[in-house]
């Protein structure tokens, strides 16, 4: 098979991986080699679905011996199979990098003969890139569940970021939809990576000469809407992963039906709005000081489709508002709808010079059409500030302060068998 056809098959099979981040690592290039990394990450293009292309995202092979219900590459699916040689991936990466198409490589693979056999070949690609070609660009390497500790450690020494996909939000769903994957096979390497990263950062503090282990950290991905878990269960899982496993990112991927299977739900369209709301809630966990239990509860386990999760929280907590712009601390400002991390920091910086006016708030970048219901500025307020949540809810829904950018809602239709 020629390289062109292989590339088409193996990039098409890789497109459902959500992550394309190239941030969090800083490496100077060698004078004879090629490539460095930028700590803020760089996007090189945007594909027709509007997602950023930063890395050359590719599978080493789609020839899978597993039969996971949701996956296009499952062994019982009749698709054309292809595998790259180590050299082919190395050359493509270098050719693309030299022309500034990409920031680096994101290599994943179907499970060929065994997890270890597959992982060994993947590690061999990055080893060749780093050692023979002195490649200093970004590398994200997927860990195949069930591969040996030794290979996981080796992967971490060459890659900037490594990730193990958790696939589904609960063990029951994993058993049902990906019977050959074991929960332990996924969590065990995650824990190992977390431990190695922690030890490594201690070593690096002692001596800068210590080799780096996955400097851009560890991430994971789960499929949303292929199984019956609630948003509350999902957010609590993410919260645990951030806190206990020290993950950098959890990615959510709206389930897109690629195959029909009686274990899978029938969807009118992929649950994109749900995915969008989960990402917003995830942001609240990581940067806004919210806990999963503040965002959702057992009695209200799904995110509101009409409002972003922070506005939904604000509407449930009228006692917290209005917030005085001139004196509120950072954590309090962050809880105001329409004020983000950047504008909260700017408010605090600008207050040192003079009191902030309404006009100043706009200049700073506060989204006034949402914030005005929840703030006061030097004691003075807007007509509707402090109205009852019910009224604010209506006003927000009617005004253009309502975020229109979210994808159209899609109701999920569940097959009767799924909850059994």
């Amino acid at each position, binding site marked *: 098979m020629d390289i*062109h056809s292989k590339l088409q098959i193996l*990039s098409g099979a890789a497109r459902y991986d959500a992550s394309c981040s190239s941030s969090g690592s800083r490496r100077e290039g060698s004078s004879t080699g090629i490539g460095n990394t930028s700590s803020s990450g760089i*996007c090189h293009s945007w594909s027709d*679905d509007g*997602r950023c292309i930063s890395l050359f995202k590719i599978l080493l092979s789609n020839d899978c011996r597993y039969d996971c219900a949701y996956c296009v590459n499952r062994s019982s699916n009749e698709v054309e199979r292809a595998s790259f040689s180590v050299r082919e991936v190395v050359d493509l990466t270098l050719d*693309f990098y030299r022309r500034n198409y990409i920031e680096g490589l994101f290599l994943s693979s179907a499970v060929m003969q065994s997890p270890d056999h597959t992982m060994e070949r993947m590690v061999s690609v990055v080893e060749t890139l780093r050692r023979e070609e002195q490649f200093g660009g970004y590398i994200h390497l997927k860990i195949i569940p069930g591969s040996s500790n030794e290979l996981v450690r080796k992967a971490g020494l060459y890659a900037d970021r490594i990730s193990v996909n958790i696939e589904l939000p609960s063990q029951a769903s994993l058993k049902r939809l990906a019977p050959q994957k074991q929960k332990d096979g996924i969590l065990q390497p995650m824990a190992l990576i977390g431990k190695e990263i922690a030890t490594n950062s201690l070593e690096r503090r002692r001596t800068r000469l210590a080799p780096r282990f996955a400097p851009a950290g560890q991430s994971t991905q789960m499929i949303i809407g292929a199984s019956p878990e609630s948003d509350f269960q999902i957010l609590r899982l993410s919260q645990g992963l951030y806190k206990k496993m020290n993950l950098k990112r959890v990615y959510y991927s709206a389930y897109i039906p690629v195959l029909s299977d009686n274990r899978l739900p029938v969807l009118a369209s992929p649950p994109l709005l749900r995915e969008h709301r989960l990402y917003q809630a995830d942001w609240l966990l990581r940067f806004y000081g919210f806990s999963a239990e503040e965002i959702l509860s057992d009695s209200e386990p799904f995110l509101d489709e009409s409002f972003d999760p922070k506005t939904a929280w604000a509407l449930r907590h009228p006692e917290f508002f209005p917030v005085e712009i001139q004196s509120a601390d950072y954590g309090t400002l962050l809880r105001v709808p329409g004020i983000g991390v950047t504008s909260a920091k700017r408010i605090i910086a*600008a207050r040192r010079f003079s009191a902030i006016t309404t006009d100043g708030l706009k200049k700073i970048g506060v989204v006034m059409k949402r914030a005005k219901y929840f703030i006061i500025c030097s004691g003075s307020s807007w007509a509707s500030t402090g109205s009852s949540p019910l009224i604010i809810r209506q006003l927000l829904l009617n005004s253009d302060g309502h975020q229109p950018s979210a994808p159209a809602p899609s109701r999920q239709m569940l097959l009767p068998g799924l909850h059994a």
Partner: protein
Amino acid sequence: MPDSMKRYLYDGSADGLLSAIAWILEDEADPQALMLAKREDTFFEEGFFIATDEARAEAYFSRLKHLAPDAARIIYFFMLSEKEGMETSLLRYCALALRHGDAIKGYLTHPAVNDIIGTSRKASRELHRMEGLLRFEKLRDGAYLARMEPDHNIIQPLAWHFSRRLRAQHWFLYDLKRSTAAQWSQGKLRFGTIEQFTAPALSDDEKAVQALWQAFFKTIAIPDRKNPRLQKSNMPMKYWKYLTEKQGE
């Protein structure tokens, strides 16, 4: 503006602007109450002309870099924006930067600070964007060439970026809008202007590599999530002209 406001003029060059600012800040007690503009050479133009003094401009900028490195960086990107008519804002910004140091970047509620930082941010944002969107083509002699037409004059910081990244490669950046070029060869970076340009021949394998990238670009998108509006808002069409993946679509 009040008629009584004192008005200064400079010759329109970057050095002229910085030396005028340096001169005013040393000699005037209240720079917030002054105006600074480019000399238009009309007969009735009013104002005091300040002659360009390169040494003074340089001395002033290095003092600012020392006192307030972030503020100096903001001014650097402001100058790359090539925006005219904002000299008075820049003068006021500089006066505040000398007084408050780097903390000035937080004073976004001040009109002059907001003007300068906003304009500067546009230039640095385009630099970051071009770090991703610039495309090199391999030439027959083994060198690489990238063409671009950016809104801001960012060739210098862009070349610095690639001099750290593609160190073992011989390459050129060419800004067609300004007829300027940067060359990196054997560890040395040079800048110059281009009078006449004839497109050099491409290397034999170049079209094949481009075709592979175009194929990748097409298949990596998820068909069920097609979203051309989002694509265009992230990657405005004005940059498509030199994008390999957007050729022949």
